[in-house]
Structure formats: C-alpha cells, structure tokens
C-alpha cells in the first residue's frame, strides 16, 4: 500500500514577475516499509517538497494523498486534525533548533502525545520506551537539549517523530550535522525502523549518506525529478546528465583521476542544455 502519493505537484512562490517555481510537476510514491531518498542541492526544492507534504506550504497544482486520504484541499483545521493522528512526522536537520531549549527532553518528547489528549504520566512512559528504541538511556529525560551531544539530540528528535507511531516520517538532512560515529548510528536506526514497517523519506544533498540506506532514490534538480530508481541504479548506472555529475562529484574513497575529465564534460553538457 502506498503511504504517500504525490502527483504533478507544483509550488510557486512570490507574485508577478518575481514569481518562481519551486516545484515543477513532481511525482513520487512511497510504500510501507520503504526508505526513499530524495537528493537535491541548494535550491532544488527538496525542503519545499517536504513542507508541502506536511501541509506547511500550499501547492498551486497537483495532488497529495497521505495514507489513502487526499489532503490536497485541506484547510488549517483539517490539517491539525490529521497531524494530531500523528500518521506523518518530520525530523529537522538541526536538532538543537528543533527542540525547545527550555523544555526537558521528557517534555519535548511528550508534546505530540499530550496534544492528542494522552495523560502526562503515560506520555513520559512512552517517551522512555522510544528513547531505548533510538539507543538512548532514560536518564536523559530530565535534561535540557543543551546538555546533550549533537548525536543524542538528533536521536531524541527521531524518537519524538516515532512516538505517535506514524506511517510516514520525513527526514530533512538528518545526518548532515553529525560526525562519523553518530552518522553511522543514526543510519543504523533508520534501517531498524524500516523493519518495523514505517515508511521513510530521507531528504539530503549528500548522495553518499542516502545511498547507504535508501531502497529507492529520486533526484531533484531545479524543482523537477530528473531521475528515479533503485539506489544501485542511481549510483552505478545513472542516466540523466545531472545524476551522472552528482554521482561523479560525490567524494568516494576510490576516486579515479579520470573522473575529473568526465565531470568537466558533464558540466559543459548541463550548462548547454
């Protein structure tokens, strides 16, 4: 079953002559228990895509179906009701900014449950259980976000996203701000989650970190999906020139000197197209 179906999605910003197209007809489906990577660089529209799916940005055309429900024309109140059911969640790039600095970890984790009318004691119990799922100790509960390391904080925000047992979690650059050890740990947690059946959309500019865990990868460039395929297809046999440039630009341990000339050709080809 498809957890998310996006078709012909178009988003425009601004007015009149300065009107810009942030998304130009994006089609994307995500199934249960699947990790879909969305790769895009600055200005590709990847964050707009996430924010539109979450109802924070209104699309100018296209359709969004979340968990079998067409949410395209939803009003603010309908969105709030939908969000309260917690079927779609979001993880920000910077965990420090997405946690209220003056609330304890317990309070931050409990919030999505409290808004659904669950009692505080019960909410904190659940929070503790989910902390262990992201391999964190319950003794972090009374602490403030500032007292945790970056890796711990990001795992807290992932736990917060999971608490409502969502069907879909969108993660916007979840590992970009982390060091190697924490990056590996978060990627492992994402793999564990896939086993539990939740669908993940992993949004990043870094093909390297997405390729490790994603089942399928969609490449976004200037608001349009230029290529979609399995992770292996995208990395090993990319077809669109932009994807080819992206793959050959991503740093790897096995870089060949010949890559430099190939990149030059691709850049020239893209510039002329």
């Amino acid at each position, binding site marked *: 079953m498809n957890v998310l179906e996006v078709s012909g999605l178009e988003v425009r910003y601004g007015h009149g002559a300065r009107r810009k197209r942030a998304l130009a007809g994006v089609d994307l489906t995500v199934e249960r228990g699947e990790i879909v990577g969305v790769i895009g660089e600055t200005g590709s529209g990847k964050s707009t895509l996430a924010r539109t799916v979450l109802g924070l940005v209104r699309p100018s055309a296209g359709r969004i179906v979340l968990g079998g429900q067409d949410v395209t024309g939803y009003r603010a109140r309908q969105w709030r009701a939908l969000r309260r059911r917690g079927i779609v969640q979001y993880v920000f790039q910077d965990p420090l900014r997405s946690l209220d600095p003056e609330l304890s970890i317990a309070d931050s984790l409990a919030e999505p449950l409290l*808004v659904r009318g669950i009692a505080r004691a019960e909410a904190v119990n659940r929070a503790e259980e989910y902390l262990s799922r992201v391999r964190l100790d319950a003794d972090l509960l009374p602490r403030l976000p500032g007292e945790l390391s970056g890796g711990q904080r990001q795992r807290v925000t992932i736990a917060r996203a999971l608490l409502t047992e969502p069907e879909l979690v969108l993660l916007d650059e979840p590992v970009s701000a982390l060091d190697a050890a924490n990056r590996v740990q978060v990627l492992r947690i994402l793999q564990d989650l896939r086993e539990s059946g939740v669908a993940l959309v992993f949004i990043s500019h870094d093909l390297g970190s997405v390729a490790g865990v994603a089942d399928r990868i969609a490449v976004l460039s200037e608001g349009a999906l230029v290529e979609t395929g399995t992770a292996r297809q995208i990395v090993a046999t990319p077809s669109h020139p932009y994807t080819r440039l992206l793959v050959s630009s991503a740093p790897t341990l096995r870089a060949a000197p010949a890559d430099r000339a190939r990149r030059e050709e691709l850049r020239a080809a893209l510039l002329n197209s």
Partner: protein
Amino acid sequence: MLGLTSGRIAVAVLVVVALLAVLGPLLAPADPIAQSANTLAGPSGQHWLGTDYLGRDVFSRLLEGSRVSVTGALEVALVALAAGTVPGILSVYLGRAFEWAALRLADTLIALPFLLFAVAVTALLGNGITQAMVVTGVLVSPLFFRVSRAATLTVARSQYVEAALIAGASLGSIVRRHVWGKVLPAIAVAFAQTVGVGFIIVSSLTFLGIGVQPPAPTWGGLLASDLGYLNFQPWAPVVPALLIMATVWAANLLADAIRDVSGPAGHRVPAGGTA
C-alpha cells in the same frame, strides 16, 4: 546574586509605595485639605512633617497624594502594555501592509516628546490626569511593541514551534508551552520601566499644576508649593522629591533586576556542540 538582592530592595520600595496609595487615606492622621492657622510649622508630634503655607498636615497630604501617582503610573504602564504588545505580536502575522504601517507608526510615536504631548492633550481635553496618562501610555507603547515583536519573531521562526505545529498542537497550546515563558520576562522588564516613566510624568504634570485641581494633594504639587517657601522651610521640598526619586529608582532597579535574572535563561545558549 546581585540581580536578586537589588530586585528585592526594589520590590520592597514599590510595595511600600503601593500600600501608601491603598491605605494612605486610612492612615492619615489629619484631613489633608483641612486648613489651620498653624502655617509653616516644623515637625512635631502632631504634624510629623510639619504643615504647609495653609496650615495643612504635610504627612497626610503626602499619603493622600501617593494615590494619584501610583494610579497614574499604572495607567501609563497598562495602556502602553495593551497598545504596544497586541500590535507587536500581530505585526508578525498580519501581513506586509500591517507590518509596514505598525513599524512606521512605532517609529513616529517614539520620536514625539511625550511630556509635551501630555500637557497639550490635558489642555485640549480638559484638566484631567487620566487623559494625560492614556496619551503618555500610547506614546511609550513602542517599547512594548518592539519587545513583543522581537520575542514573537524569534519564536515564530523557531523550528521547535514548527515541530509542535507538525505534531498537531493548537496555537493556544504552542503559546502556552513554547512562547509565553520566553516573552514574559521581556514584557515584565518593559512594564517596570514604563511604571518608572509613569511616575516621572505624573510628578512632572502635577508639579506644573496640570491634571489635578488645587486643593487635592499630589507629590508634584507638594514639591512645587514647598519650593515657594524655601526661605522659611528649606528642608520641606526634600521629602516629596525623595519620594519621587526613590519610586522611580525602584522601578528602574526592578527592571534591571528582572533583566539580570531572566537574561541568561532567555538567551541560554547550550554549551554542547556537535559531539
């Protein structure tokens, strides 16, 4: 902690002044407007602070006058709070045109000399202290406008508010959980400052004889009349002057203390980096 000690002193002074205002008339040993032949008397058991040029008990007049000052100062602060905070918060949400107009209006108000305006308005609308206080409140409201706008901006653009929104929290619960605690200290500071400004204005106006009709006592009025008899009682103006000074000083001290105590919490920057 310095902020805590000075804050306690300030609160103590302001509480005493507030009590004077509420209980003053009850405590007053004499009728504050009753005249007697015993004019310009020095302090005695009967008249603790002596009598004025019409033989009225100075201590009773000071107690009675505190009510005008306190009411006036609170009027200024409350009007400023309402006139500043509401548009300050709305300016973040109500779109470009409202934001532009509100910002320009705030800049304009701040440029106007409020004492002069208070005098002018009292002259126009009749001799009442309340009208002058309302005008002053509106004129100092940009302080609340800026403070509440800045606090709303930082909170509105923060990701944790967006995270709460995505979790399905209503606007009310977001304000309660994430916004209120961060905006409140800034507003409390502005309120204390405005109370200080209010005391100065009300004292200045009454000193000039504006806003309150003569036999009714005021701190400013006492100071003005006492100054007229400097030759006979050089110490007399000191009492109302000290009262005015102490009250204004306490209000400003309280503002500083709130800032000192809440500042680090409001701008708490977490120590840990990305470890």
